[in-house]
């Protein structure tokens, strides 16, 4: 299996990459290539011109400034897992990255590609929603920053405009009283989620002051379970409330039927994953 013919060019800077996208019709960016190349090999996707953004300075790496962590779009899953900053200040991203694919794929796949691809089966989009991440985007008109909330518009469809590049992701550092959780049900190691859920809570003693619940692979794109969040906000979480939350999550799901299961099963599993992540997040917040 090989892709159909294309031209390949390495971009030397972000500006150069944008120019190459503008100058070549239907050109595509090549990041880790672990979604794009499989799709091109299967001829689900064709690109006459690939712009390789590996090796552009400034697109890689993780830094922290005050309460904000900045992650370069070309940072690989393996680099997320190894990062001391993330282990300490955003363990949710480390946990989620460990559940992505397998070691070899994680060495190539990037967080930027995972988010920009718009695949509802990818794990980072729901994590971005739960973290309330901000996405730094460069295009012909300069830089803009938009919230992850609202970025995922449909399957393989995001708020990225033509010729735009996701350059970095900004997430808040974990503060005291904040807790994280990610659970993903998969058939085997390395598989995409049957259903997954990322949760971030802000606690005020025993009461949930704020919560964000992101869901993986149970709708055309990653979604927030807002009705479920509304049920929890301002409350103490107990079993009765969690049952109501599960119902609200099932109602929010609209999964595609495939070999991983039917609609009812996937929606139910999303509710279970969310329940586990909520409990984990609250436990973490207390520590």
């Amino acid at each position, binding site marked *: 299996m090989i892709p159909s013919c294309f031209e390949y060019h390495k971009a030397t800077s972000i500006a150069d990459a944008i120019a190459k996208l503008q100058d070549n019709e239907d050109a595509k960016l090549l990041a880790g290539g672990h979604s794009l*190349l499989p799709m091109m090999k299967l001829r689900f996707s064709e690109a006459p011109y690939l712009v390789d953004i590996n090796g552009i300075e400034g697109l890689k790496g993780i830094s922290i400034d005050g309460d904000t962590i900045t992650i370069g779009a070309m940072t690989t899953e393996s680099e997320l897992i190894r990062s001391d900053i993330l282990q300490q200040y955003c363990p949710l991203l480390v946990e989620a990255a460990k559940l992505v694919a397998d070691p070899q794929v994680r060495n190539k796949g990037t967080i930027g590609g995972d988010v920009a691809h718009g695949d509802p089966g990818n794990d980072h989009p729901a994590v971005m929603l739960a973290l309330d991440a901000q996405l730094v985007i460069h295009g012909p008109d300069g830089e803009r920053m938009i919230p992850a909330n609202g970025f995922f518009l449909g399957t393989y469809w995001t708020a990225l405009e033509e010729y735009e590049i996701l350059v970095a992701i900004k997430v808040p550092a974990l503060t005291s009283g904040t807790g994280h959780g990610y659970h993903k049900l998969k058939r085997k190691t390395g598989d995409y989620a049957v259903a997954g859920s990322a949760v971030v809570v802000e606690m005020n003693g025993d009461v949930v002051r704020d919560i964000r619940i992101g869901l993986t692979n149970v709708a055309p794109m990653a979604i927030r379970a807002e009705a479920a969040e509304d049920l929890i906000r301002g409350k103490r979480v107990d079993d009765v409330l969690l049952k109501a939350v599960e119902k609200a999550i099932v109602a929010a799901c609209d999964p595609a039927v495939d070999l991983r299961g039917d609609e009812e099963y996937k929606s139910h599993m999303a509710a279970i994953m969310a329940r586990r992540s909520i409990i984990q997040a609250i436990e973490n917040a207390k520590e």
Partner: protein
Amino acid sequence: MAKQAVSFTLNGKTVDVLVEPRELLIHTLRENLNQTGAHIGCETSHCGVCTVDIDGESVKSCTLLTVQTAGSDVKSVEGMATADGLHVIQQAFVDEHGLQCGFCTPGMLMRAYRFLQENPDPNDEEIRWGMSGNLCRCTGYQNIINAVRTAAKNLQQA
């Protein structure tokens, strides 16, 4: 489509190839350079039989364009044994019966080679996690886990 000249290091030697941009590294290795150690299994980035080591990381060579490896240091299973004999990891696979048909073995060896540098003293759970990108249809994995554990012990004593 015009071919591009690409140079990289393969098992310590510089190689120059002329490839179409769409050529995958596994095909360059097998068909152009006659290094047939790395196998082709699933061709969809799942099975790991095509695993090689690139600049110190395990990579599935069926999911990498050869043009992307320009200037890289590539190591394949052919680079493991020396004139003195098998590599410690290869010997451990023999001793522990870590293979049956052997089809997955080149990928298993190359992954184990890198994994044991990332984690020289792993427990069994870590071995399973570290080797999880490689599938085997024969062994049931237990002897592969044993082989990696034995290799770790022997490498530390070496």
